[in-house]
């Protein structure tokens, strides 16, 4: 259903399709462990320990059954956004010079900080994508609800998830009809105005669509409450997985503390 989010070109059959081990684990546990993981990794600062954390994330990726190349590509895309900020750091943090470029001194401390941020960001986002991003989006909504996220926020999220693909198709239909009328985007007023009209049309259609949705829901007895049916079970393999991951995190913290002491 949601192939914009999950990246599957074809909807996969069955319940969540055919994905390996991580997908069989309790989604609630995966969300909680991901949050714990993120907080722990962000608090680390030793480069060696952070490298180990990134290794742990890569191991999770291998274990998750997500397509590794595609996932790593997405991670690399995030890196391309932050690369300029990282490249500037060596030159803006004062310290022992390593090398100089066009008369600017790059400091060792700055280089270290840039590497630290890159490792942290990649380790966390990879874990998020493998542990939570491997879920069906709808399952994530149900799991967040089971974790006491406000009901209305979850409903809002479910509607967003449900309609992203519908509206993406609508956008593509509008784009196709623009193309058929000879529209070619460029850097000019005509392009920006046309894109603005495109977005405006999408919003108008979205609102009209939402009126039909509400009418259809009311017709089926919608009383302002949506039932979220999904039964989560915390099984033995969930316990084992969360214990193993906690142990790994504890080891990282221990390494960080002993590294700082030495």
């Amino acid at each position, binding site marked *: 259903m949601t192939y914009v989010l999950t990246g599957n070109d074809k909807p996969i059959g069955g319940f969540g399709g055919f994905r390996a081990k991580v997908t069989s684990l309790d989604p609630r546990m995966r969300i909680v462990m991901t949050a714990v993981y993120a907080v722990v990794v962000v608090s680390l600062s030793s480069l060696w320990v952070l490298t180990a954390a990134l290794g742990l994330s890569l191991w999770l990726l291998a274990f998750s059954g997500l397509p590794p190349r595609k996932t790593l590509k997405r991670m690399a895309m995030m890196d391309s*956004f932050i690369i300029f900020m990282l490249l500037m750091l060596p030159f*803006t943090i004062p310290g022992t010079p390593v090398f100089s470029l066009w008369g600017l001194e790059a400091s060792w401390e700055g280089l270290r900080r840039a590497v630290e941020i890159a490792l942290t960001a990649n380790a*966390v*986002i990879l874990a998020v994508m493998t542990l939570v991003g491997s879920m069906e989006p709808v399952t994530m909504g149900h799991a967040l609800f089971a974790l006491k996220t406000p009901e*209305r926020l979850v409903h809002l999220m479910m509607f967003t998830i449900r309609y992203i693909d519908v*509206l993406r198709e609508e956008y593509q239909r509008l784009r196709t009809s623009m193309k058929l009328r000879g529209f070619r985007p460029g850097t000019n007023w005509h*392009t920006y105005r046309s894109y603005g*009209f495109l*977005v405006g049309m999408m919003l108008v259609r979205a609102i009209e669509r939402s009126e039909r949705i509400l009418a259809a829901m009311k017709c089926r007895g919608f009383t302002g409450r949506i039932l979220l049916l999904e039964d989560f079970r915390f099984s033995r393999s969930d316990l084992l997985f969360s214990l193993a991951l906690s142990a790994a995190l504890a080891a990282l913290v221990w390494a960080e503390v002993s590294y700082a002491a030495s």
Partner: protein
Amino acid sequence: MHIVDGALSNPVVIGGAVAAVGGIAMGLRSLPLERIPAAGVLSASFFVASLIHVPIGPSSVHLILNGLAGLVLGWAAFPALFVGLLLQAVFFGFGGLTVLGVNAVNIALPAVLVGLMFRPLLARGSPLQGAIWGGIGGGLAIAATTLAVAVSLMLSGDEFILAAKLVFFSHIPVMVIEALLSGAAIFLARRVKPELFIDTKGSLA
């Protein structure tokens, strides 16, 4: 525009998370269950809009349109944009998890402020006048967002001052494009569905 994990200092991250919770709570208060379908579909359309790339010179930028979201959704733009950011982080790997609060505040707070300031002006006068106010709102929201990103970087350490300045100045073309696009979108909406911006108490759709 997304900040990643590990770049910001703890006080900034925690402050952002607290502010985001407050903003989401405010937004949800303005959303009775009857309005959820409208807000959800609009939230999805802003998510799709953020996937659109618009050419600028030899390069292209992707749209954010948080100003437009604020103009259409009011306070509800806060949870709507938060949901978008959460989905982007989890399924696309954009941004991060601990910085989700900061990112949400940086993008959604300007949206809400622009909505509160300019929404009443949109329905007045001719569609062109509404479009001009919408355009100003759309540009201002991006300006405020880049400023907020710059401030969150600068609060985290002096080493980011250069990066913060660069973020701001490199986004000036984006501000212009977003202003033009928001204005055109409002113009079209005023022509096609004028009742959209006539407030029937409680804003939104």
